[in-house]
């Protein structure tokens, strides 16, 4: 079993069948993480390089754990201690890594399209671990995996994505993934945080959170990037929180038993009330756990080890 493509640069290029194939593969790897000895030899002898140009703890650690549980050799490479600061281009850096026989490069970069640019330039498989505001495909896949684990059916599932959609790769990947699987997706936030023509991506827009939460099965909160306050997107964190923060009262507007998700790291008391983050509706830590299984599945399928 393997994916048809060499790389995973985004959800936009995946079919519903491919998405389901990844989720089904992740099922079997989730079981591995529950064992006493959390390791299988599937990627023994393969080299995975985590090439992270942006600081990240959880995604990098998740990929590292995933690769190690598949018995791959893992190298972490970040620009602060590399030649990148000496002016080497992304492509040259990657070609050097490839020359050391890296099988898979996991890339996190602040520029949209960095993963696609890299994938075109190297023979190694490239996994996009987040490129600017473009995509973060493994985040969307682990979100889907978590919903599926909670026995939710994607077709007709009503999902609200709340927050700064314009600057969110998590939002884009989830919009592509959920709409491909037939979910009914809405985005909620101030107009300053909605990108142009967003409805052409097959979603509905709400500027009012209470309206946007009506009858939803799932609420995906996006992290508010606090540093954007000075960029005229919202006046104050206080006002944002009052208008778009998820509170216990607001949660009651959604369907009974609605799930609350967040890609992390969360701003407690800003976009999400602490009692919700820690409450029974929250699947935030399930998302983290499932991240490892989903990334194991992606690494496995791209490595061609299943062939």
């Amino acid at each position: 079993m393997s994916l048809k493509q060499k790389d995973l640069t985004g959800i936009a290029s995946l079919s519903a069948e491919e998405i389901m194939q990844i989720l089904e593969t992740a099922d079997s790897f989730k079981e591995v993480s529950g064992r006493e000895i959390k390791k299988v030899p599937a990627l023994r002898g393969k080299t995975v390089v985590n090439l992270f140009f942006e600081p990240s703890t959880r995604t990098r650690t998740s990929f590292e754990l995933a690769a190690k549980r598949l018995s791959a050799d893992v190298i972490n490479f970040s620009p602060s201690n590399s030649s990148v600061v000496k002016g080497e281009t992304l492509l040259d850096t990657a070609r050097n890594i490839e020359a050391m026989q890296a099988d898979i490069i996991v890339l996190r970069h602040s520029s949209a399209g960095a993963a696609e640019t890299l994938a075109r330039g190297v023979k190694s498989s490239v996994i996009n671990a987040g490129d600017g505001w473009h995509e973060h495909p493994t985040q969307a896949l682990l979100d889907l995996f978590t919903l599926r684990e909670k026995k939710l059916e994607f077709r007709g599932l009503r999902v609200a994505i709340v927050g700064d959609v314009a600057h969110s790769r998590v939002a884009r990947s989830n919009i592509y993934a959920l709409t491909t699987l037939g979910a009914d997706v809405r985005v909620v936030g101030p107009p300053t945080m909605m990108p142009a023509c967003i409805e052409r991506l097959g979603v509905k827009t709400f500027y009012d959170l209470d309206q946007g939460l009506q009858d939803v099965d799932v609420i995906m909160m996006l992290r508010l990037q606090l540093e954007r306050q000075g960029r005229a997107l919202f006046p104050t964190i206080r006002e944002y929180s009052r208008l778009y923060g998820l509170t216990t009262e607001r949660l009651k507007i959604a369907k009974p038993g609605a799930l609350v998700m967040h890609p992390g790291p969360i701003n407690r008391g800003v976009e999400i009330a602490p009692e919700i983050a820690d409450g029974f509706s929250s699947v935030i830590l399930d998302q983290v756990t499932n991240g490892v299984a989903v990334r194991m599945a992606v690494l496995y399928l791209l490595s061609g080890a299943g062939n």
Partner: protein
Amino acid sequence: MNASSTQTLLIQGGHVIDPGRTNGIADVLIEQGKIAAVGANLTAQGKGKNGSVQIIDARHKLVLPGFVDLHVHFREPGFEYKETIKSGTAAAAAGGFTSVCCMPNTQPVNDSQAITEFILEKARIAGNARVYPVGAITKGSEGKELAEIGDLRRAGCVAISDDGQPVMNSLVMRRAMEYALAFDLPVIDHCEDLHLSEGGCMNEGVVSTQLGLQGVPAAAEDVMVSRNLALAELTGARLHLAHLSTAGSVRLVREAKARGIRVTAEACPHHFTLTEEAVRGFNTLAKMNPPLRAWDDVQAIKEGLRDGTIDVIATDHAPHATQEKLQDFAAAPNGIVGLETALSLTLVLVEEGVLTLESAVAKLTKAPARAFSLNAGTLASGVDADVVIVDPQETWEIDPSRFRSKSRNTPFAGWKVKGRVHATLLGGRIVYESSEAR
């Protein structure tokens, strides 16, 4: 410029188009580097030292005034690894352009007589095309203090512009327009509100949303077009608007012209040929400023060209080194080379019925020459014999490795196009011949 040829030439049997003057089969006689006559069945008497006459057979070809490009970046001084005046003018000749206006965003900026003279001297040595420098509006193109515009004019600048770093302060722009009136010098603006466009790297629309790239809204251009038209009305200055890309700009200019405001406008081949869709796949060769826009904008640009709102086709020839365009999309520089593809892309408008052949030629010759008061773009008797001979039927594949330009950054590589420059004459001297012509 190198001395004109003393050779007498007779270009025979071509379809001569000198917009507004001639459109039909005719001969063109060139003596002492000047147009001596255009007409049927001309005969030539050898003059000059050797007394011979060179006959050029132009049957089945178009014989046109050398093209005039109001907007090129030749990168010298400062960025000679991208282009030099020598390589840039060679590219011009290969594309049929005999007169080019080079923008001042060099390093240092062309805001002084010394830089203008340097550019003119380099152009004279190269001898491939006439180079008309465009001077800066403000010192260092910093948008604060006026450059020595009188000096620039005297040294040979034909217009002023802070291209790429548009003057944001409307009072400074007003004063520049007023001051330029003293020299009857056109003021060019690259219309972009730098606050609205900040951080943007492609058109704002569905494609930028899908790709997660920061967009530049059409309004960033429209706002500044509107401001500039208001200032032109206030001051009475000669305003020239560079590379219009939006439907809104076209509408505003059309209305301003109807009200009698002195304004001319240009459009670039990429803006009437491609849409924002070309950016998909994060194609840095489709990254330019103003960005490629939406389909409706492209239609509006074509309509503006058709109804005369847009006077001029200019290339915005913007060479960049390969490694610069290999960077990630946001980091890659804006712009594409255009001199060697402009003719073929313009002829598509003729094929589509947007322009007649004569009006297409006018937008490459007579109209730009008039916009900047250049003594070029015509085959009138007595003017310098700048002539381009075009094979309108030849189909060819655009191959950047064969460009005369130092740079290869074009989104049109591999395109099959029709209509090709066969030979280019500058002052009666052949400065370019296609391999088929040789």
